[in-house]
């Protein structure tokens, strides 16, 4: 598969960025000259106030369902004291100077960082705008600024009886100097943050078909391109016969590019029909021709030996020697595709000035922007990248190699670099195209002493590293890929003798982070294994966990107490049903889920999930709840049904939703979410809802069947 690395300067910036960069909120926005929607008052890079009284908040994070448009706009609206009805959101342009994510050192979204890293920035932006409008009103009305009240977008002064809207004061406010350190509200002054009033800004457009995604971009004289990718990872096209393709009406051209063979059509149907008619010879010399079963066996063999040690405490082997009971388990987690509803797509067009304009659901804008420029032989300044609403991502659009941007630029240039090109992946490209969650094996050993204490824990993990060779390579240290051991390196349970180690295995199957990343497998392994150990120690799953969490994990413990209480943990259940519980801290948020499960034809039926979450201040409580519901549904879909298999020879067995099955409405459990009240700074919610559901259901299943599932998906046990 074709891919470009980030140039070295950017890579260094990435590493420097890990410590957190500070962004000035009072940056003037000269670079916005290109923006057709320029407004009279643009106090900073995040806010525009028009004379139509509309407050537009520019969102530096991509909106693909996790709610940053609404969440970040809420912060601005609250500090400005705007009326929610006058607030709109749109994506900020790609500009790493203005819109850096301080967690990454580039502009980008991921790791549930949008709210956590924007909380101060967006509030300061709003407070600065408010101060400037107030100052303008004070001058206009010859009134002390301190006497001016702002409520729901209207300024008023009791003494003079004057009042005005933001829009009316926009031009005057533009003459004011932005304060460097605007005064922020105290939490008791919040009008939207933590309240129910800020309904989602994108609901309306997403119920009428008006919301524009990359696939919806049409340009004059645009060609639509699809690429025939190799069916085996690491294969390259050695030759192809396109005579049948060119006979199809509407086919424009056929070109070999790095990732395969591109077919261009006057319309989508012609491109798709053309691709079907292609005949390609593939060179398999560098290809992965083993099956996923072979790769699993390699990983299982690896975890039998201790790997690079990520964390250790006490004397693990001595503790096992003295243990009364030892449990041991091997887990295998399959390759998973993200399968966002909108497969990868984008549009590129030559501008009259020789530059290019691009529309795509870019998740790591700075990297994509850079790769688009390289692919077109341009400087970044000659490329405008418009971030579009995207039909889900779950990690799929966050590409450290910017492979899609590279393919888009290459497909455009191969056709001549003049005619606009829309490049689209089909569902088959998506399911078979790699960038999967890595196939991962775990080996766990646990020791319980004669008094029922869990005294030893030894966990070894083996998987491919998707960070190796990418711009995020700095996250690999001493042979440990942080994303592989997160959630295992530290566990919330005090075990005096503790060791976690890992092996990195290599093969040409491309892999990527998948919603909640390492926690998708470490959460399952840790939370099912602790459940078995507690049972061996004669402890209750909830009380046993709480006793081992202690004060050090009080926030996670609070979610466990809350979820257990919501589920009435100790109460008896209807015949044939059982509860299972799992608690996982990920991305700075704490989540416990309790699942009520019955078995129906050897598959679990999940009736209800009680979920408690602590994400600090819940800026938009309904968005937090929706993310917990969605995280549960996404995780449940995978743990019940999903596995990508490579057959002997290396071809991917699954291809579309008929064999890469998604959860359906009828399978969605009832979900009840409680948010733990908190005054801590907000943390993310896009990912943390996903990890606990799999182990919670598995623990309930074990209670019902006596069997532990150590090789999900659960449907596998029906066919194995």
């Amino acid at each position: 598969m074709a891919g470009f690395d980030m140039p070295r300067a950017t890579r260094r910036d990435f590493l420097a960025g890990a410590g957190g960069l500070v962004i000035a909120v009072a940056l003037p926005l000269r670079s916005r000259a290109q923006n057709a929607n320029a407004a009279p008052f643009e106090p900073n890079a995040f806010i525009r106030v028009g004379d139509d009284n509309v407050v537009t908040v520019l969102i530096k994070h991509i909106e693909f369902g996790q709610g940053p448009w609404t969440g970040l706009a809420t912060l601005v609206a609250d500090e400005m004291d705007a009326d929610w009805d006058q607030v709109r959101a749109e994506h900020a342009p790609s500009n790493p100077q203005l819109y850096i994510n301080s967690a990454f050192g580039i502009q980008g979204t991921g790791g549930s960082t949008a709210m956590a890293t924007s909380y101060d920035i967006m509030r300061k932006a709003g407070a600065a705008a408010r101060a400037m409008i107030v100052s303008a009103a004070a001058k206009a009305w010859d009134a002390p600024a301190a006497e001016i009240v702002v409520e729901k977008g209207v300024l008023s002064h009791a003494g003079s009886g004057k009042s005005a809207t933001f829009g009316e004061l926009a031009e005057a406010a533009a003459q004011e100097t932005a304060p460097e350190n605007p005064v922020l509200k105290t939490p008791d002054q919040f009008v939207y943050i933590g309240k129910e009033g800020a309904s989602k800004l994108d609901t309306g457009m997403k119920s009428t078909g008006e919301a524009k995604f990359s696939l919806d971009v049409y340009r004059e004289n645009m060609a639509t391109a699809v690429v025939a990718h190799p069916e085996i990872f690491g294969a390259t096209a050695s030759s192809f016969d396109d005579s049948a393709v060119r006979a199809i009406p509407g086919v424009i051209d056929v070109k070999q590019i790095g990732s395969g063979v591109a077919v261009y059509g006057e319309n989508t149907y012609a491109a798709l029909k053309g691709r079907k008619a292609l005949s390609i010879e593939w060179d398999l010399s560098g290809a992965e021709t083993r099956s996923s079963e072979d790769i699993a066996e390699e990983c299982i063999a690896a975890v039998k030996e201790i790997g690079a040690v990520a964390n250790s405490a006490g004397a693990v082997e001595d503790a096992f020697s003295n243990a009364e009971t030892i449990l041991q388990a091997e887990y295998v987690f399959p390759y998973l595709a993200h399968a966002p509803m909108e497969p990868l797509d984008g549009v590129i067009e030559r501008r009259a000035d020789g530059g290019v304009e691009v529309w795509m659901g870019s998740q790591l804008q700075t990297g994509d922007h850079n790769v688009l420029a390289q692919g077109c032989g341009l400087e970044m300044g000659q490329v405008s990248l418009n971030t579009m609403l995207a039909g889900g991502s779950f990690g799929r659009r966050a590409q450290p190699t910017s492979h899609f941007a590279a393919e888009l630029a290459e497909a455009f240039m191969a056709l001549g670099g003049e005619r606009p090109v829309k490049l689209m992946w089909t569902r088959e490209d998506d399911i078979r195209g790699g960038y999967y969650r890595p196939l991962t094996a775990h080996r766990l050993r646990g020791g319980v002493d004669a008094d029922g204490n869990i005294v030893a824990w030894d966990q070894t993990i083996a998987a491919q590293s998707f960070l190796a060779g990418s711009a995020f390579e700095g996250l690999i240290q001493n042979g440990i890929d942080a994303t592989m051991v997160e959630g295992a390196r530290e566990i919330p349970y005090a075990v005096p003798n503790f060791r976690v180690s890992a092996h990195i295995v290599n093969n040409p199957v491309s892999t990527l982070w998948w919603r909640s990343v390492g926690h998708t497998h470490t959460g399952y392994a840790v939370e099912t294994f602790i459940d078995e150990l507690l049972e061996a120690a004669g402890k209750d799953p909830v009380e046993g966990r709480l006793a081992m969490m202690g004060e050090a994990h009080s926030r996670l413990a609070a979610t466990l107490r809350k979820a257990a209480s919501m589920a009435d943990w100790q109460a008896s259940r209807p015949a044939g049903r059982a509860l299972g519980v799992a608690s996982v801290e990920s991305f700075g948020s704490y989540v416990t889920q309790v699942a009520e499960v019955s078995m129906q034809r050897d598959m679990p039926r999940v009736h209800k999930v009680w979920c408690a979450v602590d994400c600090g201040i819940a800026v938009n409580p309904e968005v937090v709840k929706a993310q917990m519901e969605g995280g549960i549904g996404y995780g449940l879909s995978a743990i019940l049904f999903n596995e990508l298999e490579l057959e002997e020879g290396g071809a991917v067995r699954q291809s579309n939703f008929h064999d890469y099955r998604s959860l359906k409405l009828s399978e969605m459990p009832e979900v009840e979410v409680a948010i733990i009240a908190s005054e801590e700074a907000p943390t993310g919610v896009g990912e943390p809802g996903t990890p606990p559901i799999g182990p919670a259901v598995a623990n309930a299943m074990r209670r019902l069947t006596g069997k532990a599932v150590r090789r999900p998906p659960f449907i596998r046990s029906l066919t194995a």
Partner: protein
Amino acid sequence: MAITLNVNGEDRQVEADEETPLLWVLRDNLRLTGTKFGCGIAQCGACTVHVNGQPRRSCVTPVGSLEGQEVTTIEGVSGPSADAVREAWARFDTPQCGYCQSGQVMTAAALLDRNPKPSADDVNNAFEGNICRCATYARIRRAVADAAEKLEG
């Protein structure tokens, strides 16, 4: 070939290969982009439209089979059921990424048109072919129930 369809109440003549799926005619020829591509094999429901009032997967419906038929897309769907559905969608802030939601709204509107008081099983059956990878299902379920209640009025 030239084919005449009635789309959202208007006769539209399109020039297309008769095998072309309706989805691509709506999008590429008529620029009605609210109807989405998700799978191409009638497995996800993102492309759901109404043909003569019934939900249909436009990604597997050849346009040549629709001469003279009435096609309704998300841009044109109207009436008490559609209005109630959209209001309920807003009440529960149902969409997340939103990409499948045109199809979900079309399915909900068609369901309530023919069955104003659907049971839980009726709702499950109606949505069996509509995938939402964001798993907004809990809210879709509540929104459909709410819309049904409002319609009953």
